[in-house]
């Protein structure tokens, strides 16, 4: 067992942290957020130049063959700066589906376009009544001989507003909540019959609702098994959760630092408020949550590569429970310790709070994953 970073990982950490330090302060973020797509296209280019968009992909597709640890490093740094760019949607979600489900043609064609920053993707998995169940798919994909016709509605498509192509989960067979009969389809956003309704998200990002009405998808844009894509979706969801955990740890780290700094400078009753014992102990409570979250994120990162589905899901759910609980605990404390200023849009802490709360709701909140973990028999003893 060894918690040290390799030389390459240390270099990656340094370069992404330097980029964030130089170009992604809270003021920069506000500026980027006001730009047209709601984020910085310039930063997206920088990510490409730095190889961040290439990270998890195999070398034959122009990638860097990074694993979960590399993703953790990048997502944690992104969390610290609350980045607005569609890295999660494009690289983690859609990129993950291509890696795990795409055939060689799809991979060699699309992944290089992700890597060089030219193409943004999104993954449309959620539906009005699916809640957290990835297998709850009402959207229909009808086989019409040499193409598929997709009809239905997809909600909460993260960065679906800017994506060039969207991977859509749709039902090719079976009833609404059957685990078999789900396929993945790569849809062009300009395809006739597809309409997008963009929206802002509570945490300052973007998304879209997608309506599909007999949208034609060629056979070549079917990703993986038309009836058996749920395992790939689940696996990518586990990777996505693990990445979100790392992002949250980045947020927590920053929330702790911002709050500490406030405690050390803000004066009330003629003294720094950080001298009040009650507030000191709250800051310690935050530290405990942060360290426990970091530990569980390491655990999920270690286990997310596991091929044994049950072991993997247990670990990932356990981590998401921890992150969800800590999001509330750290979020509430950091706002409370700031008082009124923490409630304002002008100040940074509330933006972190909103992001971690939304992270809790993405791919299952703490209660959902607690139920899943319990249903899976809990954590096994082995580390």
């Amino acid at each position, binding site marked *: 067992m060894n918690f040290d970073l390799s030389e390459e990982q240390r270099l990656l950490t340094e370069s992404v942290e330097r980029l964030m330090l130089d170009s992604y302060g809270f003021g920069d973020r506000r500026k980027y957020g006001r730009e047209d797509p709601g984020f910085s296209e310039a930063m997206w280019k920088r990510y490409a130049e730095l190889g961040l968009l290439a990270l998890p992909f195999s070398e034959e597709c122009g990638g860097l063959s990074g694993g979960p640890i590399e993703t953790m490093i990048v997502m944690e740094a992104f969390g610290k700066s609350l980045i607005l760019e569609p890295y999660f949607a494009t690289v983690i979600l859609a990129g993950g589906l291509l890696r795990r489900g795409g055939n060689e043609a799809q991979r060699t064609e699309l992944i290089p376009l992700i890597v060089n920053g030219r193409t943004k993707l999104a993954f449309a998995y*959620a539906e*009005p*009544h699916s*809640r*957290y*169940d990835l297998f*709850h798919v009402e959207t229909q994909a009808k086989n019409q001989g040499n193409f598929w016709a997709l009809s239905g*509605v997809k*909600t*909460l498509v993260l960065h679906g507003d800017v994506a060039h192509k969207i991977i859509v989960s749709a039902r090719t067979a079976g009833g609404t*909540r059957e685990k078999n009969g789900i396929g993945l389809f790569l849809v062009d956003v300009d395809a006739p019959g597809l309409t997008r*309704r963009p*929206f*802002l*998200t*509570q945490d300052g990002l973007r*998304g879209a*609702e997608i*309506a599909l009405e007999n949208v034609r998808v060629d056979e070549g844009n079917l990703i993986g098994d038309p009836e058996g894509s749920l395992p790939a979706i689940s696996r990518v969801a586990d990777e996505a959760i693990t990445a979100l955990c790392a992002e949250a740890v980045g947020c927590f780290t920053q929330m702790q630092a911002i709050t500490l700094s406030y405690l050390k400078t803000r*004066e*009330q*009753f*003629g003294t720094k408020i950080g001298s*009040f014992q*009650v*507030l000191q102990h709250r800051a310690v409570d935050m530290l405990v949550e942060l360290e426990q979250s970091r530990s569980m994120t390491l655990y999920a990162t270690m286990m997310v590569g596991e091929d044994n589905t049950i072991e993997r899901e247990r670990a990932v759910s356990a981590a998401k429970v921890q992150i969800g609980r800590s999001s*509330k605990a750290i979020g*509430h404390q950091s*706002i*409370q310790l700031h*008082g*009124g200023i*923490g*409630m*304002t*849009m*002008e100040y940074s802490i*509330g*933006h972190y*709070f*909103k992001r971690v*709360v*939304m992270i809790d*709701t*993405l791919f299952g*909140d703490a*209660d*959902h994953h607690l*139920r899943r973990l319990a249903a899976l028999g809990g954590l096994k003893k082995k580390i």
Partner: protein
Amino acid sequence: MDLLFTEGDLTFREEVRRFLNDNTIPDIRRKLAEGLKLSKDEVAAGTRSLYKKGVPTWPQEYGGTGWTLLQQYIFEEEARAFPALVKFGMGEDLVGPVIYTFGDLAQKRYYLPRIANATDWWCQGFSEPEAGSDLASLKTRAAQHGDHYVVDGQKIWISSAHYADWIFCLVRTNPDVKKHQGISFLLIDIKSPGVTVRPIQLINGGYEVSEVFFDDVRVPLANLVGEKNKGWMYAKYLLSKERFDDAGVGLSKERMLRALELAAQTYVGDERLIDQSSFREKVAELEVQLKALEITQLRAIANASKQQQGVQDPASSILKLRGSEVEQAAAELLMAVIGPNTLPYIPDEELGSWNEPSILPRWAAKIAPIYFYSRAASIYSGSSEIQKNIIAKAILGL
């Protein structure tokens, strides 16, 4: 001891229900039910219809109903549930009682009727950027020049200042004495030259609060309430009143009922969320806390009605503290109901047009803002830490 409502209480409640039914403006009722914003004029109209029998919480001699505390409580509960409850600023609850308790005859004659007929919208100017929890360290100065004060300084976290006609302020009139002395209670026309209101956007996206700047603002000496330099006493009266009123039982009840209503429409697979045992247990846990708070509130009302002076009732001291926690828990329950669909943020101004014909229900977009805003409940009107300091000292003698 009889812990049930008396016949008289029940009759009163029936009367209130009839009154609300007969007097509430239908359009206001609809907008309140749908969680839509009301204009200042609408609030004024709604307030006038609520005040038809007099200002609910005031004594009869000042245009009030003269109701008992319990009747006032019943009225507010029913008005909130109807829903018909609007608040035309802080005239009725805060500055009005200060004026009829400590003001002079001219002040009573001028200001109270203008509150009672919803002419003047009042806001409260207590907090300052450097004086948050340490309220008494405020720096806004009022220097006497002939027949008026000249006020300079800055106030912050002023609720609904952008609607206000008047602001009542704590100002420093003597900088050379200890901080709790040397403070006065001043009524300021917010349209006076030199007053600037700058709204602050909060993390829920709304503009509920503002900063208010005073730059050489002239205020007549006649606008001083009570004695000069005794303002801290009036503020303490007002703050303890706020703590008493702030359990928010009605608000939390409304939120809980809303959560149950929405959970009955929400499916997890084939099962309604409301039928899921773990969700029901979560609800029950909160219901217990809310019921305990409600009884504690009723105990405090019964106690206050007896006009006991001296030792503060432990039950009433915990109302604001515990009330904010329950209110926040109820907001978290709403979040648990909406689940992933909390994500889209729709600004208020788009809410009318949004979701016809969109996919997610219109209410979905308002849940996270309610939750985010609920975090302020343990900060404003004296943070929970301040409440605990007060209780430790005043009640527990520590």
